[in-house]
C-alpha cells in the first residue's frame, strides 16, 4: 500500500508521518510528550478538554493535538509560552471546580504546570451529590471532568446501549441518564466499560468502594447483587 507521507517539525524535531496522522501521534513519533486528559486511544477523540493544545505557526487559534491532523510543512510548538499559559489556566479551572483528590494524573499535571488553583477560590465548585442508584457502581460527578469517555463507550465506541448522555448547559452541563432516571431504569446493562475508561474517581465500582469503607465481604456481596429488573415492562 502506498501511503502519502508528510513532513513537519515539532519543537524543532523534523519528522515524517503518513498523511492524516494527528499532531498527537506525530509528536509521539518525535518523542515529544503532549499532556492529554479526554483523549483515550480506544474511544472517539472529541478534542474537548483542550489540554493537548499546541501552537501551529500560521494558525489563529491553538489546535487540539488529539483531533487535528498534522499538515505538510507545519511548524508545531508544544511548549510555547502561549500553550503553557493556556494549559495552566485550564488545569487551574479544573482543579478549582472539580474534586481531583482521586485523580493522581491530574494532580501531577497541576504540579508540573505550577498551577495556583487558589486564584479561582472565590468561584463556585461543582458539588452534585453522589448518585447511588444501582448495585454495580457509584457516580460522583463532583469528580467528573466531562471527558465524555463514558458516553462514548456506552454508545458507538463499544456497547451501543446509549444509557449515558448529557443534561444541562454551560457550567451545569453534566453526564446524565435520559431524564435523570436511575440507571436500573435505563438501557444500561452494567457492562462496566464506563468505569474502566473514567480518568478520575467519578465512576467507582461499588464493591471496591464498600471494601475500602471497611464493609464486611459477605455484606458487600449482598449489597451489590444485581436484582431482577422489576421496573421493566
Amino acid at each position, binding site marked *: 500500500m502506498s501511503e502519502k507521507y508528510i513532513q513537519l517539525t515539532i519543537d524543532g524535531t523534523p519528522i515524517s508521518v503518513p498523511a492524516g496522522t494527528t499532531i498527537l501521534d506525530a509528536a509521539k513519533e518525535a518523542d515529544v510528550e503532549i499532556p492529554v486528559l479526554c483523549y483515550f486511544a480506544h474511544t472517539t477523540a472529541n478534542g474537548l478538554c*483542550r489540554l493537548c493544545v499546541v501552537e501551529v505557526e500560521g494558525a489563529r487559534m491553538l489546535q487540539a493535538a488529539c483531533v487535528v491532523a498534522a499538515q505538510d510543512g507545519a511548524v508545531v510548538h508544544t511548549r510555547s509560552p502561549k500553550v503553557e499559559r493556556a494549559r495552566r489556566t485550564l488545569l487551574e479551572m479544573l482543579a478549582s471546580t472539580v474534586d481531583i483528590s482521586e485523580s493522581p494524573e491530574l494532580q501531577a499535571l497541576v504540579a508540573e504546570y505550577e498551577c495556583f488553583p487558589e486564584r479561582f477560590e472565590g468561584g463556585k465548585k461543582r458539588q452534585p451529590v453522589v448518585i447511588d442508584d444501582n448495585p454495580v457502581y457509584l457516580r460522583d460527578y463532583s469528580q467528573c471532568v466531562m471527558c465524555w469517555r463514558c458516553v462514548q463507550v456506552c454508545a458507538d465506541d463499544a456497547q451501543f446501549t446509549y444509557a449515558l448522555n448529557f443534561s444541562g448547559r454551560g457550567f451545569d452541563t453534566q453526564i446524565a441518564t435520559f431524564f435523570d432516571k436511575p440507571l436500573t431504569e435505563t438501557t444500561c446493562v452494567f457492562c462496566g466499560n464506563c468505569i474502566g475508561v473514567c480518568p478520575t474517581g467519578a465512576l467507582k465500582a461499588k464493591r471496591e468502594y464498600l471494601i475500602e469503607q471497611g464493609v464486611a465481604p459477605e455484606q458487600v456481596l449482598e449489597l451489590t447483587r444485581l436484582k431482577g429488573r422489576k421496573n421493566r415492562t
Partner: protein
Amino acid sequence: MEANDKTVLICRGTGCESAKSPAIQTELMSGLQGSDVEVKFTGCHGMCQQGPIVIVEPQGTFYANVKLKDVEPIVGSLKNGGGPVEKLFYKDPATKEGLSTYHDIPFYSRQKRLVLQNCGRIDPEDIDDYLAEGGYEGLKKAIFDMTPDAVVQAVLDSGLRGRGGGGFPTGRKWKFTQDAPSDTKYVLCNADEGDPGAFMDRSVLEGDPHAVLEGMAIAGFAIGAQKGYIYCRAEYPLAIKRLQIAIEQARERGYLGKGIMDGDFDFDIDIFHGAGAFVCGEETALITSIEGNRGMPRSRPPYPAVKGLYDKPTLLNNVKTYANVRLIINNGADWFASIGTEKSKGTAVFALTGKIANSGLVEVPMGITLREIIFDIGGGMLDPNKNFKAVQTGGPSGGCLPESFLDTPVDYDSLIEAGSMMGSGGMVVMDEDTCMVDVARYFLDFTEKESCGKCVPCRLGTKQMLDILEDIVEGRGKPGDIELLEDLAVGIKAGSLCGLGQTAPNPVLTTLRYFRDEYEAHINHHACPAKQCKELITYHILDTCVGCGLCRRNCSTNAIIGEQKELHYIDQSLCHKCGVCFEVCPPKVFSVEIRTGEVKLVES
C-alpha cells in the same frame, strides 16, 4: 399600477402584528370595500417602534402608530379624495414637525435598502407580488444563461461576505463546496438568529421569504446540490408560516422541486425547526442538530464544505447572505462591488435597539459611520438630555465602542480593528446611565448559560469570568480582578473549541479597553460611575425637599420618614434601592439624589 390607483399597505411584521395590525387590516378592508383602493399587508418596514405602520402608495404617505380608531379618518381621506390625515404623520424627533411621506423621513432617506427592498412593499404570502418585482429572474438567468462555474465566479467577483457574523468571503465558500466531489450535497440556511435583541433575519424571512429561497436555489445550482434546509428557530412562528407558504407556492409554480422552470435542475427546500439555542447557530452544532443530536459543535477541520450534513459536502450561509445572491445575479457582480468599501461590499442590515430615538431595522451601505447610523438615521438618543456613551455591535461575540469611535466606518475590518465586530446585525445604543461593567456581566451571563458545556475553557472559564464580574458589580471586587479577567480571556479565546468560546470574552475585553476606569471605580472606590449598581449606590433626600410625601407614600419598604410639608429622610437600613423616590419626586423639586462611592451612610 396606474397613477391614481391607490394601494394601502399595512405592516404585519411580528412587531406590528402584536400591536393589532391584523384587526386594522380587516377594518381598512371593510371600510374601503367597493372603492378602487387596494388593501395589502406586508412584512416589516423597520420602524417597529412607530407601528402599526400604514403606507399609502404611490405617494408614500406614511402613517405611524395607527390605532383602530384611526381607520375611519384614513378611509375617509382615501374615499373622498381629501388630504392625508396629518395627525398620524410621523413627527421628526428634532423639529417635532410632521413628515408626510417616508421619503421625507431621515430614518428611510439615509438608508440603502437592497436586501430589505421588498420588505414592507410586497405581500409576503403572495408569490405574484414577488414575481412582479422581478422575483425568480435571478434563478432563471443562473439556470438557463449561466454555468455553475459562472455563478460561483459572479459571487466571488461581487466581493459578498457572509452576513452571519464572521464575514467569510461567500464566493470562496461556494467554490470549496462546488469542488468537493460528491453526488449528494446540501445547502443550509442559518436562520437560528440567537443574538439577544436581534431580528434582522426574522424580518427578512417574514417580509420577503422568496428572496431567501431563490438565493438558496441559485446556490444549489452552483454547487451541485439537490436539497436545502432552512434551520429556523421555533420561536419564529410567523417566519416559519410564511416560509412554508412561500415554499408551497414556489413548488406549485415550478420554482422549486423537480425540473425547475421545465429545465433539468432539481432542487427542493424544507424547514427544520430549531429549539433556539444560541450555540446551534454555530455551523457544526447546527448540522449536528439537524442530524437529530444535541446541538454541540465539533472540531474543524473537516469543514462542512468537505464533510457536513450526513457527512456530505454542505454549504451554510446566513439568511441575508442568500437574500443578496439574486441581486448579484440580476445586476451583475460589478454593480454589487460598486457599493460599499474596498473590502466590504454591499449593505449591512442592523437591528437598532437600546436608548435610541428610532429603534428598528435599517439597511445601510457598508462604510457609513456609526455616527450617521445612530444620529442621522436613528435620530440620536431616546432621551435627548442624555449623553451617548457606547454602542455595542456583534452581540455576545462583539464589543462596545465609545464616543471617540463614532466616526469609525461600518465594515468588517474596521470594526474588528476597533475591538468589536460586524456580527449578524445587532446594534445596541447605550447612554450615560449604562454601567459598562454591568453590560459585560450581562453578556457573560448569556454566554455562560448558552455554552454547550463541551469544552473546558468555555464551560468553566465563562463561569469564572461571570463570577468575578458579579463580584465587581455587587461591590466585592478585589485588586487583581482585572488582571485575572484578562488572563482568563486570553486562555478562553485561544483554547476554546468553537466560536462561542473563542469570542465570549470580547465584551469584557472591549469594556476593559475603553472603560477601564469604571472597573477601577467599582473595585477601588466602591463606586458605580453610572449609578446603576444597586449595591454601590444610596438614595438621599436633599434639603430642598418640600415634604409633599409622594415618595413616602410610594416607598414599598416604608424607608422614608417625614411629616407632611417637612423635610423627609431615608432610613438606609430599610431602603431596597428600587429608585421609586427618584422617579416620583416632582421634576420641579428634584430633591432625591443618588450617591455612589465611599459615601457616608448617615443622613446629614
